[in-house]
């Protein structure tokens, strides 16, 4: 009776095989079948490839390397570390697998050389095969990372003004800092209570440090770490706590009271200042007095009351000869035109360009000294050009305000430019804008010496008839905007009237606007 029952512990194949002892071959075959089934059921295989993780030297005299094994294939797997070294023939095995723990290799002083390259490989092997990791190249100079400093102690020194914290520690025990082989540097960090803001300080090579920015009533946490030469920083040491008592509590209320009182005082002072800001402003920044023209009220002019303006501008004074010197009268030049529409319409526009010292109502530019800048004049030209009434100025002239005014009785003073002289007793005055100074310079072509002529008659408003010994009156009357019955038969623009004054100078008076 050969009844053997074999149970295969695979969930899918729960079958019992009954084999008869007689069939040995069948048994062998069955055993083989069993084995393969067993292998398939537990998936045993060659080991997976291990990976070398890192190496580290804590004091630049020894070093340790760690690896990560791959899958073990279900079988007991052993790992071996082999290395080759620069300037050393042959392949060697790790001298110490135990001192540094599992999956590690420790190289002691005899097996460590600095400034040479090591090539490490780890081989995992089990019953079914081997697996070798990728080679790992390293130089001890590059893998230096010390242990954390130890024995960190804190001591609070309570002084009158503020407390201070003294920290002391020891270098890591395995590091030799006395022989000059390595230079150690320390760093510490401090945090208060439970915040996450660490404040870091470097300590150089000293094993103590003092903190002065500590305040009472808090719990301080301190940690220290170190560095060797040009390597990596160690881990932070264990944390150490210290609580600083707040013995200064009773002094606080007084300082708080003082600060509150001064704050109240400041606020009150500020409120008072704000309430009286106008007077403060006047006191701090006194208004600058502007230049004043006698007889001229700038606000009146700006408001644009034309009758008043006209009256204001009329001055009673006598005039020196026509080409009087401008230099003496530097102030208060004024050009006046009787084109009142223009005046009123432009005065509003001109508000900002009205300068008390220089009221200009038209664009006549005097090329000699003028208190106004040329730009202002030109600006006004443009403004008046833009102002598209297209009215040429009826009556343009200069008004000069002299300080030493004699009692003269001149109604108004206007100057007009002579446009043309017809024969020797007819003067046509220009009505359009003139580009240059407009004093009347009388020049006759016949060679008659320059002198003054008496005006006989003024026809229309730009025609002046001068007296001649044998003068034949040529009068041109204008109708509308052009001449008729005029010997010249030239179209003219509206004219300026002139009136004879007692002294015989050519003066013009503003004629009523003809437009």
């Amino acid at each position: 009776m050969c009844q053997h029952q074999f149970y295969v512990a695979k969930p899918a194949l729960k079958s019992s095989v009954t084999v008869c002892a007689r069939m040995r071959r069948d048994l062998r075959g069955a055993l083989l079948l069993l084995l393969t089934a067993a292998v398939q059921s537990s998936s045993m295989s060659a080991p997976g490839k291990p990976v070398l993780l890192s190496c580290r030297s804590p004091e630049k005299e020894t070093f340790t390397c760690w690896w990560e094994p791959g899958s073990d294939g279900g079988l007991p797997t052993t790992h071996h570390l082999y290395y080759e070294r620069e300037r050393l023939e042959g392949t060697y095995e790790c001298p110490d697998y135990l001192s540094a723990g599992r999956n590690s290799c420790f190289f002691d002083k005899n097996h460590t050389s600095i400034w040479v390259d090591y090539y490490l490989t780890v081989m995992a092997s089990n019953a079914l095969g081997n697996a070798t990791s990728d080679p790992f190249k390293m130089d001890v100079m590059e893998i230096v990372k010390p242990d954390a400093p130890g024995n960190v102690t804190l001591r609070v020194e309570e002084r009158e003004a503020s407390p201070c914290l003294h920290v002391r520690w020891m270098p890591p025990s395995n590091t030799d800092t006395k022989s000059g082989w390595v230079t150690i540097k320390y760093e510490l960090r401090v945090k208060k209570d439970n915040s996450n803001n660490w404040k870091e300080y470097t300590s150089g090579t000293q094993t103590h440090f003092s903190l002065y920015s500590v305040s009472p009533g808090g719990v301080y946490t301190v940690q220290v770490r170190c560095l060797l030469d040009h390597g990596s920083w160690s881990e932070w040491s264990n944390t150490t706590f210290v609580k600083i008592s707040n013995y200064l509590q009773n002094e606080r209320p007084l300082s708080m009271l003082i600060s509150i009182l001064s704050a109240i005082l400041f606020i009150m002072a500020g409120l008072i200042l704000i309430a009286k800001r106008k007077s403060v402003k006047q006191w701090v920044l006194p208004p600058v007095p502007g230049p004043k023209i006698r007889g001229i009220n700038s606000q009146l002019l700006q408001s644009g009351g034309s009758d008043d303006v006209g009256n204001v501008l009329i001055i009673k004074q006598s005039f020196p000869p026509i080409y009087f010197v401008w230099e003496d009268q530097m102030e208060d030049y004024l050009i006046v035109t009787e084109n009142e529409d223009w005046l009123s319409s432009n005065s509003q526009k001109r508000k900002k360009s009205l300068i008390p010292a220089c009221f200009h109502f038209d664009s006549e530019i005097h090329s000699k000294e003028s208190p106004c800048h040329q730009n202002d004049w030109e600006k006004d030209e443009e403004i008046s050009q833009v102002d598209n009434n297209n009215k040429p100025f009826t009556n343009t002239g200069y008004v000069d305000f002299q300080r030493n005014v004699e009692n003269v009785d001149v109604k108004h003073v206007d100057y007009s430019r002579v446009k043309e002289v017809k024969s020797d007793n007819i003067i046509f005055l220009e009505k359009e804008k003139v580009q240059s100074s407009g004093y009347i310079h009388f020049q006759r072509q016949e060679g008659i010496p320059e002198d003054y002529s008496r005006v006989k008659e003024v026809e229309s408003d730009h025609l002046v008839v001068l007296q001649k010994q044998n003068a034949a009156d040529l009068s041109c009357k204008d109708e509308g905007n052009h001449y008729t019955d005029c010997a010249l038969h030239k179209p003219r623009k509206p004219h300026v009237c002139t009136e004879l004054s007692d002294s015989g100078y050519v003066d013009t008076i503003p004629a009523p606007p003809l437009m």
Partner: protein
Amino acid sequence: MPGTIRSVSLVWVVLLVCLSSRRTSVGAAPICTNGQVGCHVLSLDNLFDRVIQHSARMHGISSDLHSEFEQYFLPSKNQIGRVGRICHTSTIITPNGKENAQRMAREQLTEVILKLLIAWRDPLWHFHQSMAHHHDFNNFSSNKALEMNDMVHELRQGVEKVAEKMQVLGIISNSVTSLASPEVLLPSDSADWRLMKDYDLLYCFRRDSNKVQNYLKILKCRIVPNHGC
């Protein structure tokens, strides 16, 4: 009157002659002798500190340049080329550990330092030239290369001064041959470095500058131990 003038001028002439003769007789000897008042003599301790600082800075620059090169060229960290990197200073026997360095005699250690510094004089100069011509590198790297080159020069002079002082003070014997004829120390097959690539040159120099710094520190702590050790 003329007699006094003559005597005064004679005195002046004598003084001048004396001064000039003193100056000429000084020659190459140091102006400050030990114990002279008002003369600032650098102690050996001070000299050592200076050269150590100098070497630390030199090593820092070489590390920076090396990491910059690594960024550009990205050599594989685990390259299999084991025989690939042989530094041209491999022929110089250097102690490879703390005990070996401490066991070495002072004169020998000083000589090793000087040999290393001399061996790097030409390669660094050519390295700087090749960097200046390559427009891949920015001015910063090229400046660093020049600085490195200058520092090797200055450091070598500094170490020679230290060795001189040690000899004067009797700390070491006069057997340091490098001071006599530096060119003797150059390795016979010194043209090896021309075959090296720039990256390998930097790698080797970073290592050698670390060696120089370490050896100097060991020397200092052995000869003038103080708080700095």
